[in-house]
Every structure is written in C-alpha cells, then in structure tokens.
C-alpha cells in the first residue's frame, strides 16, 4: 500500500544542512497499523509528510496505492491526497469558524464524495465518533477529545486508503487517546493503512508494527509479533 524507496530529504537553513531522512526504505501493507517512533528531530514528521505527498524528497520514490506520488502534477497530487490519504495532527487543525459538520465536510472542497451523499456519510461519521449532538458547534466549543474525533472523522470522509497520524494522542487524556487509537485500529482492520508517529509507547503499543528512526535512518523495525511479545513481557 505504502512503499518508500530509498528516500532522502535534506533541509537547508542558512549555511547548514540537516539530513532529515537518509535513504529510508520501507513498505507498509494494507490493513497494517504501523507506529513510527524516534527522538525529536529524527525525521518522523518528515517521513509522514513525504508519504502524504506534501514534502517532495530530494531522492527516492514514494508510492501510495502503487501510484508514484511525486510523479503526479501538483493539481493531480492534491486530488490524489484528497482521495487516498487522511491526515490527523496533534493540533487537530480544524477550521475555527466552521461547525463540526462543515469541518468534516471540508474535504469535499477538494473532491465530492464519490457515489455517496456526503451529508449521509458525515452523519454516519458523527454517529460513529459520538459527535451528532455537537454537529452545529464550532471547534472552540468542543473539548480536545471531541476536536480530535472531528479531525478523525474529517480524515475518513473520503474513505482513504491511508491515514497518516502525527502525535494524534499528544494532547488527549487516556480515555480520548484510547478512542482515537481504537478508531485507527478499526480503520486498519477494515483494510486501511495507518502510519502513526508517536512518542508515546502506550500509543505505539496499539500498533501492529513499530519502526524506529534515528538521525534520518530506519534503525529498527518490529512486526506484530514483536509488539505482542513486548506486551506479554510488559
């Protein structure tokens, strides 16, 4: 589903060069819930943005659903993102003046929902994330947990193939974090691909697979078995 092939990315600030990704090669299949861990500044978010088609690598290729993301022209790439990729961020990034319903509907600005009434789909998502009663509220009137659920609902509107989540539980209490992680796990179970960047070991433990990045390099890659072993050992 997601294939990262020898991807490198260097940031140039002033005279300095920072190698955020250094020859990373990785493949994440459909239905796989993968956590990405590593110290701050190791390249986790860069990896996420590169997979999301938002940050073109200096070297290597990124394939999502067998499509070379950066071979697409900008407009097509934007459509591809709308259709195939959902984003969830630690800061939620909801549009402050739109209601919950309209925030969930926001992806239809890019593309209409294919073969389904967008409003019916929104209703279903609001129901799923227990937000029906908050549909008319704006983000400022919601709790942090509710905001993140709105962000999740928005990410899932177009039934993407991949969800990229960057510290989605970073601002949440345990209950809300469990809800979000449960939703991501459900998405993976339904055949989607989840790439979760997190510092939180508890959150990572919900994943089928954990990879570690350090200094822009992939230094560890453990599969479901390893996670379950770890849980058993813990």
């Amino acid at each position, binding site marked *: 589903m997601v294939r990262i092939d020898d991807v490198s990315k260097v940031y140039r600030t002033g005279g300095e060069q920072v190698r955020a990704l250094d020859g990373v090669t990785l493949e994440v299949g459909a239905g796989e819930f993968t956590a990405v861990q590593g110290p701050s500044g190791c390249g986790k978010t860069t990896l996420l943005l590169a997979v999301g088609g938002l940050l073109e690598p200096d070297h290597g290729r990124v394939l999502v659903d067998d499509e070379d993301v950066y071979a697409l022209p900008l407009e097509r790439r934007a459509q591809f993102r709308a259709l195939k990729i959902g*984003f969830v961020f630690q800061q939620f990034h909801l549009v402050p003046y*739109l209601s919950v319903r309209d925030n969930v509907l926001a992806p239809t*600005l890019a593309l209409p929902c294919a073969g389904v009434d967008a409003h019916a789909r929104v209703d279903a998502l609001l129901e799923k994330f227990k937000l029906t009663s908050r549909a008319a509220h704006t983000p400022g009137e919601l709790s942090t947990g509710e905001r993140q659920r709105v962000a999740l609902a928005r990410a899932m509107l177009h039934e993407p193939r991949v969800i990229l989540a960057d510290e989605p539980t970073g601002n949440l209490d345990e209950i809300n974090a469990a809800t979000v992680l449960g939703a991501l796990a459900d998405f993976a179970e339904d055949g989607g691909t989840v790439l979760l960047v997190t510092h939180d070991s508890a959150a990572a433990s919900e994943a089928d697979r954990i990879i570690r990045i350090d200094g822009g390099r992939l230094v560890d890659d453990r599969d479901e078995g390893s996670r379950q072993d770890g849980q058993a050992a813990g």
Partner: protein
Amino acid sequence: MSVFRLSIQEIVHRKLSFMLGLLSVMIAVGVLVGAVTMLSGHDLRTEQLVAQKEAQTREEMARMEDDYRRIMKDMGYNVLVLHGDQSLEELQRLGYPTHYMPEDYAQRLADEKVASLNHLLPLLQERVSWPEMEREVLLTGVRGQVPIYEGMKSKRPPIMDPVEDGEIKLGSDLAEELGVSEGDMVTMRGRDLLVREVYERRGTQDDVTSWVSLRQAQEWMGREGQINGILALECICSADEIGSIEEHVRAIIPDAQVYEFSSLIVARGLARQRAAEAHETAIEQEMHYRAGLREERRAFASVLVPVAAVGAGAWVMFLMLANVRERRAEIGILRAIGVSGRKIHSAFLLKAALMGIAGGVAGLIAGVIGGAWLSEVPPGAEGFATLIDVRLLVAALIGAPLLAAVASWLPARNAARQDPALVLQEE
C-alpha cells in the same frame, strides 16, 4: 462544502476585518460617486439658479416697465409733433419751436387713431416779455388733452388738466424768483391772473416755465388758431421706433415731423437695457462663480478620487495580507486534505469580491446622497432623480469588486502558493 460557503462562514467569523475592507471600498466608491454626483448636481443647481434669475429678471423688467410708465406720466411727454420745417437745432437752442401749425392738427391726429400715440396735447410756446416783472419768461399755452376716438384708446381720464382762463401755473424756480406762491394774484401783460399751482421742482426746463390757457397765449403771441407743437404722452414705442411714429403722423399731417421731446424714452430704453445688462452681468457673474467653484470641485475630486481608490486598494491589500497570515494554519490543512491552490485563490478573491460588492452598494448610496447634499440638490429636491446615473451605478458595482479583487490578487496568490508542509511542521 463550497468555496462560497467557506467564504461566507469566514466573513461572518471575522466581521471586523471584512467591515474594515468594506468601509475602505465604500469610501473609494463613495468619493467617486459623490464627486460625479456633486458635479452633476452642481450643473443642475447652476441651471436652476440661472433659470430662477432669468425669471426674476423678466419679472423685474415687467415691473420696471410699469414703473417707468407711471414715472413718465408724472413727469411730462414723450414725443413732440412739430412743423416739418422746424429746425431742431433752433429748438434746442431756444427751448421752444419757432414754426407754427393750425391748432386743428391735434384733432386730426386724434381722429385718425394713430395707434402708437396717446394723450395728445396741443401747445403754443414762446419766450415772451413780462413787463410787470421786468423780465422775459417762457410761456406755454395749453388747452388740455384732445379727446381721442375711444374705440382704439384706453378710457383712462386725461392726464393733464387744462389751465383755465384767468389762471396761471408756474414752475418752481420761476415762482421762487418772482416771490409768488399758489393762490397769489399776479399781473401779466396787463391781465390779473390767479396762481393756481406752483409745480414741484423737476430739474427740467419746466422749472422756469409758466403755463396759461392756449387762448390767452395765442392772444398775447398774436397766433390765433395756431400752435407750434403737439405733445404725445405714453407713446407706445421705444426710442428706435420714432421713425415709424413719424411715418404714421406724416400720413395724416404731411408737413409735420416727430421729435423725441425729452430723453425719457431714451432713458427708459436705456434703463431697461442697463437693467437687462445688469441682470445679464449678474447671471454671468453667478455662472462665472459657479464655473470657478465647479472647476475647484472637479480639481479636488480629480485628486481625491484616485487617492481614495489607491488608498482603498492598499488598505484592502493590507487586510487581505493580514487575513492570509491569520489563516495560515487553516490554509495549510486545507491544502493538506487536497484543496487545490486554485480553490484557495478563488476563496480569497471571492471574499474580496463580496467585500467590493457590499462596499460598492454602500458607497453608491452614500456617494449619491453626499454628492447631492454638497451640490445643494438633496434627496427629494427637484431634479434629484436626474442625478442618479445608471451607468455610474453599473460602473461602481462592477468597478468596486474589481478593485477589491485586484488589490487582493497578490495576497490570494500568496495564500494559494503557501507550502502546507511548512505550516504543518511549524505546529
């Protein structure tokens, strides 16, 4: 979700920013529309004032005409019918005619109904000696007005009473020199006469003239049945029509001529002319003043309008740049979820266009009212409706959103080109 809905929601959320932009567009459009309306109103007001002054002039001229008729009635005669051989130079020099005509000429003129002549008064005038007073005096014999055939003439009463036999009337200076006053008895050429009236000072030859009955004068002068002039009062003509009167008179009395006896006709004509000129000058001065005022207003507007337009454009651009900065995170996430740069661009332009339309409508209303008020043709006044220019309305409604969109173009492009990865990494 549509770009329109997104824009409306954003406008409702950030009302102040939108209102400030709207206000600047409103000012720019208001200044433009106000300037054009003010100049149109100024022209309209000028037309109204000139028409008003012209009407006043006509009214005053009519009133003046009437005044002059009344003044001339009190002061004397208009034209003098003389013998054809009378030298005008001699008349001027001596102050009285020296050629004589039969007295019945006056009646002939009256009977022939000369339309332009009124109030015919035959007279006999000479300088005669007044032995009792040891001096000469200008003596005028009058018999009063010759009745004119009433079919064509007004039926107003005669305007000059005759002097009765045994009476005399004196000019003010003459009476003073003689030391006599009304009611006194004087002796003239051996006959006692009652001083019936001493005229008030007129500042003319009349002040040194004495009047007796025509019969008495004819007797003293040895001119029985003769006169040397026929005065006509309230001649219905102007100074340049004397020739036509003479033509009419000569058709009846071939050996007569018409002399403009006093300068009153000319004075009247001149006064009318000068009054008309004064009014014309006043109108011209008013128009000149208003043309100057218009030019000042036009010059002021020609500076103010572009300044307001550029100012509004700059202000809208500034507000939109601030708006782009404020919505940086929002733009980042919208781009991330697949909204194209073109749609982001159009969202900002749509907002600017809405700002322009609302500001344009508000500016149009404010401009029309303000401009009309400044040009003294306020709403409800006569001609106000003509100040509303449909072409200007259309131009303002197209121009205002265009101005706002042009001013927002760069900020909108910046928003569209914003790198979502940078924004998301900043968080």
